[in-house]
């Protein structure tokens, strides 16, 4: 073996297929599965159970079949608005999220001076809690003295100064911007790790062949890193489909539902509407779970197909 290349997916096919050491396998899996059974499966099942019931006063449960689903899909405009917002977010945000992360990683890889300093600074937003990030950016977006508007006024563009979080047209994009700000550093770190794992002899060979920076990037590095990038995109997508904390702190779903996401709507129905009924919010959660899962699986399958074809 010449060099380590933890990048080839073909290893799966060469695994042993007979004589599995079952006791050891179970030992490895048992803690995870136990934890999972106790703390994840149970709530999950209860959610699905709740979605076909209405919880009436005094804990009485009434089976309602698909009534909640029907109401959700035909008589709930807020739900559809939240779906639209969430989908916009989940489709638009992963691209800058991962893209900027990749670019930053490339900068570090290209041995920019003070790389270590930059790495820590660029990663710092990831370390902050949503409460902190939300508060800071609410101050930034503040109409009167926030940095965003002050900057605009300073360069003479005061006409563009906005109530960023108060205007339905800009609220969603403002919150999205903040969210990407927070997370792109994480993608940077993962891309950096992947870059370091690239097989150096291929890169050397390419540069010997007089292959320019850009072509090396597009035709060699990215294809080899593809699996990592894909994972990041899918993770980012799933994360955006579930986004809650930041929206909750910055806008609470307003103004006029322009930042309402499926998760914030679920929370409101479960905790803020004057009812203890868990049935309806469970319906939303159950439905959304299926939707996101379907997306994640199809994306995964779609890209892995391409992957497999190349080998």
């Amino acid at each position: 073996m010449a060099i380590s290349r933890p990048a080839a997916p073909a290893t799966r096919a060469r695994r042993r297929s007979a004589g599995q050491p079952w006791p050891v396998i179970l030992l490895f899996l048992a803690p995870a599965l136990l934890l999972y059974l106790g703390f994840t499966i149970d709530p999950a099942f209860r959610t699905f159970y709740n979605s076909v019931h209405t919880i009436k006063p005094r804990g009485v449960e009434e089976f309602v079949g698909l009534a909640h689903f029907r109401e959700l899909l035909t008589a709930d405009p807020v739900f559809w608005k939240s779906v639209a917002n969430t989908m916009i977010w989940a489709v638009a945000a992963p691209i800058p999220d991962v893209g900027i992360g990749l670019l930053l990683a490339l900068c570090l890889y290209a041995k920019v001076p003070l790389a270590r300093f930059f790495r820590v600074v660029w990663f710092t937003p990831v370390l902050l809690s949503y409460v902190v990030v939300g508060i800071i950016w609410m101050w930034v977006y503040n109409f009167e003295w926030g940095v965003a508007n002050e900057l605009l006024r300073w360069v003479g563009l005061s006409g563009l100064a906005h109530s960023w979080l108060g205007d339905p047209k800009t609220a969603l994009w403002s919150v999205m911007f903040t969210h990407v700000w927070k997370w792109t550093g994480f993608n940077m770190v993962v891309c950096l790790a992947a870059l370091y794992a690239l097989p150096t002899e291929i890169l050397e060979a390419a540069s010997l062949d007089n292959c320019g920076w850009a072509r090396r990037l597009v035709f060699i590095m990215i294809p080899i890193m593809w699996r990592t990038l894909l994972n990041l995109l899918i993770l980012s997508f799933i994360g955006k489909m579930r986004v809650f904390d930041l929206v909750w702190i910055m806008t609470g779903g307003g103004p006029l539902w322009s930042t309402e996401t499926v998760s914030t709507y679920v929370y409101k129905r479960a905790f803020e509407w004057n009812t203890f009924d868990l049935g309806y919010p469970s319906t939303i959660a159950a439905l959304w779970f299926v939707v996101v899962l379907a997306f994640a699986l199809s994306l995964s399958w779609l890209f892995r197909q391409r992957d497999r074809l190349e080998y």
Partner: protein
Amino acid sequence: MGFAGVARQTVLLTAVALYTALAGAPVLWVAMMSLRTTSEIAAAPFGWPSPAHWGKYWTVWTTSHYDTYFWNSTVIVAGAVAGLTLIGSMAAHALARYRFRGNRVIYFVLFSAIIFPPQLTIISLFQVLVEYGLFNTRLGVSLVYMAIQLPLTFYLLEGFFAQIPQDYFDAAKIDGCSELGMYWRLTVPIGMPAIATTVILNLIELWNEFLYAVVLVTDDDKRTLPLGIMRFLGDKLEDVGMIATGMMIAILPVILVYAFLSERLIRGMTASVLK
């Protein structure tokens, strides 16, 4: 380096500088505010702290139960992250190394849990904890934290472990290495960059976790740090100065841990290249 090269370098450095400002300035702002009083901030939001009220850190630490919250957070999160790393890596190793029927099914089941919205499962989790007598305990919170971060941890580790060439393991097997040994002496060291990544990620998410902490703990002496910050945020005018100080106390440990761990991460990454 020709003209194109210089131009490229300039663009690169400008982009780097701009992004650094974007990423770092907000935190710097909070750091400055943490040393000023609220009235000073109201008068001039972007001013430099003069005088720098270092005493505020001490005030926050001693008067708002911050020391208790800090301790609770440390205990709960450290326990959860340790447990997660062990459990997650074992499960990831098992599914990445061994081929058996049901492998993909288990993978799918563990992975799909990522998608559930915590806002809803929190109620049943609460009931589960009550049934086990773990409600309002630090252990209970720790276990819940493990459960919620397990899918992601597992997913990231499995993806990485699966890419470790089988040849290493075949060679080790020939050398008489046990199954556990292969896990401990091969997967873990080689997979260190991924493990370190998940440790950092879990640390960040759990250190800052808020929703479950509010609901699953009612005793003030068991509360965690994020709740401490929320104390300043009440209804009335935010005590901006105190909030900033409180935030810095919450931020600094994470940054320090990251700074320390990231060195190992880079060392791990470069080491695996050289091997």
